[in-house]
């Protein structure tokens, strides 16, 4: 068997408690990595813009795309041009990135 990360889903349970209503919400996820967390909540959100500075991790996310309206891009949050599709977001998630 392979590595199993958070098989009990405690991370997304904690996120659900913090953001119980994501329906129709615009979410910016900073440090999405390979989409581990994105896959667990994106289907409930209105849209998700997910960024990570590591191209290999964005490629891994794209290889197993989360359900929902998800756009992913290689970018660091402090980059000058984030290419943001929205001027503002209803939720920003710092996903182990601070």
């Amino acid at each position, binding site marked *: *068997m392979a*590595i*199993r*990360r*958070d*098989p*009990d889903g*405690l*991370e997304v*349970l*904690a*996120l659900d*408690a*913090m*953001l119980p209503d994501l329906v129709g919400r*615009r979410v*910016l996820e*900073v*440090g999405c990595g390979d989409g581990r967390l994105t896959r667990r909540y994106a289907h409930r959100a209105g849209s998700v813009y997910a960024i990570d500075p590591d191209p290999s991790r964005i490629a891994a996310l794209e290889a197993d795309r989360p359900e929902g309206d998800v756009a992913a891009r290689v970018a*660091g*949050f*402090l980059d000058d041009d984030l290419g*943001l599709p929205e001027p*503002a*977001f*209803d*939720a*920003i*998630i*710092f*996903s*182990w*990135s*601070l």
Partner: protein
Amino acid sequence: MPAEGMVHALHRAHGLLAPGGRLVDLHPSVETARVDANGASIGTLDAEQADCRHAAADAALARALNGGLFVVESEADFWFWTYGDTIEELRDHVHSSWRHTRVGAPLIARAQAAVQADRSTVLRIAEHVRITRLRPADRR
């Protein structure tokens, strides 16, 4: 994210939140990640630099709160567990995906001894994570 950029990142997030928007931060606590054998700790990872980074994240959040940028609406802790069939598998995972963290030889030896004594030993890495929901202090 470099430590010096963390406060800047919090300011940037503040500027990107719509009215009623919230920032949710997840990051490991300063409690060092450890390896469990059958649910009991057998030692911590070599993660001095990572621990410093987590402390820097705590400090950046504290600055944002003290500076009146955000207020905390809610916070909680949870455990993030990563399971592997062998300590070597967990070691390789850490070395390939975590920056500034290693599974040291003594810890590997303890895990191998635990498995040798009981083939059904369950090995996992345990990380203590803090999750915080923040509201811009100047908005509802």
